[in-house]
């Protein structure tokens, strides 16, 4: 079963008078539970592709189905809900909320969902923090955590809602190689434990071994799917 189906996806940016063709006709299908890496040099369109899949940027042309929903036709409120309920994000720069501590950062998406009681939310967040190995750092604010620890919090936050897909845009680019490997291992573990689809982008060929499959992208087009 495909969790993502992309057909002829094009994305243009207007940059002054010129148009940047960031994606020029992508066809891609990703299976549920997969761990996929999107590889390509800087400027090849990785972020743009992940943004479109992650419902934070809209396609110029083509069709994008996420969890069987055509997302190109949703309004802002619906697409925001889509992100909240079906997608988890891990950013290159971690992007934790600085005024919230680790636990609160992980609780945050669940609080937005307003589905569970405060207690349930706390339990679930604690469980995730535990799984990413930060049991001793519950009350630490992002500024008090190392880069690797921050990214672990971000992974817990991305997974806490039980999303269909977790998107990670160059999650290790801001980490040293040892920490980067730990993070990728964690993602691999979480992919196995939680049965969540993971898509991460990278421009570093060394990290490809963590992926089940690799999508190569160059100049807005898929070069080779392996």
């Amino acid at each position, binding site marked *: 079963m495909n969790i993502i189906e992309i057909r002829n996806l094009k994305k243009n940016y207007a940059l002054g008078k010129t148009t940047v063709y960031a994606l020029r006709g992508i066809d891609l299908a990703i299976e549920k539970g997969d761990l996929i890496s999107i590889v390509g040099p800087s400027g090849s369109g990785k*972020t743009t592709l992940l943004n479109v899949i992650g419902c934070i940027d809209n396609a110029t042309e083509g069709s994008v189905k996420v969890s069987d929903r055509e997302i190109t036709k949703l309004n802002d409120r619906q697409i925001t809900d889509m992100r909240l309920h079906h997608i988890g994000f891990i950013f290159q720069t971690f992007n934790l909320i600085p*005024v919230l501590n680790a636990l609160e950062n992980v609780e945050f*998406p669940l609080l937005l969902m307003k589905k569970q009681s405060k207690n349930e939310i706390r339990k679930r967040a604690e469980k995730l923090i535990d799984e990413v190995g930060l049991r001793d750092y519950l009350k630490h604010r992002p500024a008090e955590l190392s880069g690797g620890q921050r990214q672990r919090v971000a992974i817990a936050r991305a997974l806490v809602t039980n999303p269909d897909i977790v998107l990670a845009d160059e999650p290790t680019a801001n980490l040293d190689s040892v920490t980067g490997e730990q993070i990728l291992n964690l993602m691999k573990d979480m992919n196995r434990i939680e049965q969540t689809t993971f898509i991460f982008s990278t421009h570093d060929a060394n990290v490809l071994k963590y992926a089940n499959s690799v999508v190569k992208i160059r100049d807005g087009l898929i070069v080779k799917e392996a």
Partner: protein
Amino acid sequence: MDFLFTISLRNLFRQRRRSILLGTAIMFGTAILVLANAFAHGISEVLFNEIVSYVAGHVSVSFTKGGNANNQIFHDGDRIRAIIKERVPSVKRVDEAIGVFARAIGNGKADNVVMVGMDPSGEGVDEKEMEKYAKAFTFINGSFDNLGDSTIENPVGLSVEKAKALNVKYGDVMRVRYTDIHGQTQAARLTVATIYKPSNVFMSVPIFFHVKTVRRLLGYGPHDVPQLYLIIDNPKRDAKRFADSLHAGLKPPLAVIDGDLSFRSETIATTLLCLRTDSASLACADSGLRLISQTANDSANRKKSVIVSSAFAAATGMKPGDTCSVAFEGKFDSSRATVRLIVTAIADTGAGIDGNVVLVNEKDFYKAFYDTWPKSTAAGTGPFRPDTTNGIYKALGGEWLLVPRSSTTKDMMKLYREIAQKGWRAIVVDVGSMYETASMVLNLEYALNLITFICVMLLFFIILIGVINTLRMTIRERTREIGTVRAIGMQRVDVRNSFLIETGLLALISAVVGTIVAFAAMWGLSRLTFKAGENPLGMLLVDGHLFFAPTAGAIVFFVVLIVGIAVVTAYFPARRAAKLSAADALRHFE
């Protein structure tokens, strides 16, 4: 929702310097606003409760007899009081306002004083008022109770300052020279029955008597009333309205004296009407009447006119130049009064004048009328009564003369000058509210309210500029954070609301702190003692101290207003922040 609150609150303390800067501005603005308002309100309290109600009443009815503003008397007091009761049923108290300039002579020293009547135990003086009296006067010797003591000869109360100026002590006898309501110069011995220290310098000028004492000294009869001051519950709301209503109720009826006219040996039931002798009224009378014969004097000086109808003249044989007398019964006095009249003209019956009617010039008429208030004969029981269609109706005088309501103190002064010039003989009745009688004093309150208003405007701009600037910087700094929370799934409205909450909280905290600061300032300022001396601004002080009267309602209003302005101002930048595209916001690096 409460986690939005938590985040907003924590964000607020994040940019501490910026928040403190804007917060301090709002705090000071609020403090000044609350302070200015409490001061204005305090002054207004002093003005309305201490000063205006003493110098003007909330609504006043004045009676000017003989064109002399110092001659404040009306002879049928019960009637006026009944009209007040009917028109202003909720009136708290009707004070007899007697204030007469006099020369007081103490022990080797003399000073100008104002003799003022008071009745602190009178009807309608409630506990609150008693408390106010207690606060307004600190008694050194005796108390106002002594003023009502009939065993003391003319008991009088003096302020410490006056007692010093007159060199008199408690229990001393002093003398006072004044003009009574009949225009006679009088002198009286007074006994100093109490000496006090007033909290307001304004109160140190008058010397106080019990109202019954000052009435007796000035020659008021038992049915006479001086100027009346109405004290009402809510003067700001009702004073004007009640004055208008009372004015409408005080329209005078036609003045009529029903009596018996004696000429030679005959006595005939007769009605005397008042012929007003100002030029407009005389012109009206001339166009309505056909004079058949007239004395030479009369054609020269109409002020002495006494006109009878031709039918009445034929029946009695009266001719111009004849003297007759009319006897009539008084309303309050069982004895009869007599007025002598010299007939000056005869007018054709039917045209304006009919039956046994004598038109008497206003000077003679009102002299008789006010000396002995005539018993009124029920209308329609025989005596002639002209109605409004009568050709000379407009030339006939009423029992008194009600002047139109004036709208400012200036108008009122003009009116009084006019009254003095016109030489009207009728008692001039004027109804005023404090807004006319004390408009100059009240202007001060408007000025203070203006200051408050300027404070609000200033604050408004502080908030406007401060909030917009602060938010612009904050939003720029947090662009990537906005992108993050949007990516995670926060709706636009929640992003917007979190900024609104943040701004609102800042404004609320600042406004509350500002209010506390204002209270501290009030506490401090009201402990300072000012020596006002003769400065008229001293009347704004209570006991030499500034007086603040903050009201919960105003403070709540200001706080809500400030938070409201801040939130409304924040709305537009906050909405712009919420509309940022998540993808763009995430790419934003600074």
